[in-house]
């Protein structure tokens, strides 16, 4: 079988994995993944599999969707966002335990960051180092949250945001 995969394994593309593992271990409700990937999707899928925890993934790239849809199961829903029209997805009508934001195009991420601010216990965003902010503009969305914790041990940085949980113990 032939699959679409990265030409090179770039460790930095998975620098959010330690944070995903940590946050999923302290939270236990439904999980939303915006933007699938070879690093996040398998890890989230198998972390949620143990207790059949609900996981909903959205992807706008048809190539990535082809890979991610192989994870569709009774607890894991994978959806294609056609024409990168992220406005059409319903992510505000319920409360999420964890939201992971890593979708394309990059400048769009801040829109979803603001949309889920009052609808998620923990919001995890990748690539939050200051040098990337010209592209992803996360910092415009950070003031929508009361709490923020930055994982700067590994580059690129990953940040966790919340309006509901105390992040000082992470």
């Amino acid at each position: 079988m032939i699959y679409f995969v990265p030409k090179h394994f770039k460790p930095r593309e998975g620098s959010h994995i330690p944070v995903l593992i940590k946050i999923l271990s302290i939270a236990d409700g439904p999980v939303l993944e915006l933007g699938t990937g070879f690093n996040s999707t398998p890890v989230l899928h198998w972390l949620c599999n143990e207790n059949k925890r609900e996981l909903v993934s959205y992807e706008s790239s048809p190539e990535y969707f082809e890979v991610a849809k192989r994870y569709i199961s009774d607890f894991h829903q994978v959806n294609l966002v056609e024409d990168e029209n992220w406005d059409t997805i319903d992510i505000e009508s319920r409360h999420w335990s964890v939201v992971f934001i890593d979708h394309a195009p990059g400048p769009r991420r801040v829109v979803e960051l603001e949309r889920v601010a009052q609808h998620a216990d923990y919001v995890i965003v990748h690539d939050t180092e200051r040098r990337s902010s010209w592209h992803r503009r996360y910092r415009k969305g950070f003031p929508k949250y009361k709490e923020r914790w930055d994982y700067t041990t590994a580059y690129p940085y990953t940040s966790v945001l919340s309006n509901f949980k105390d992040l000082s113990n992470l």
Partner: protein
Amino acid sequence: MSQYSTIKAHMHIGGGSHLPVLMKVMDITDGPVLELGMGLFSTPYLHWACYDKRRKLVSYENKKDFYESFIFNDRREIVNGYDYHEVKFVENSDWDKVDLSGHWSVVLIDHNPGPRRREEIKRLANNVDYIVVHDTDPKNNWYYKYEEYFPIFKHRWDSNIYPRTTVLSNFYEINL
């Protein structure tokens, strides 16, 4: 030049069925980790699972194109310090020459050719706390012939996800 390419790889629906087992075993251990056969799922996970504590991780791969796809030379990542993770190429698929000495906390057995895997299981039987073996479904035993070597372990645990993963130990009971 495109950042992506195609590669010949076998991936079952919901690929990475050994990941949940690896996650549990990594969670209950803290010593050095050996990965025999790198993969799209195990390598990124193990790399980052070992990162925060700089837990020793050694990965071996015998397929040149696959080995070369796992490069650690991005200068932007120098600050991360990946010295804890060694990646080694197995020339001519000669696994006999791979030095497995020392005591390992966790070993993942997932290398090629498949029928070779049981030889490393036997070599490592008394110097590993937990051996995690992928693709242990009975229907594939004609190829891997694992079952002949599993009895040399005192403890065994099988997952219920296809393709099946088995954990073996001569040192600890296994309750995952």
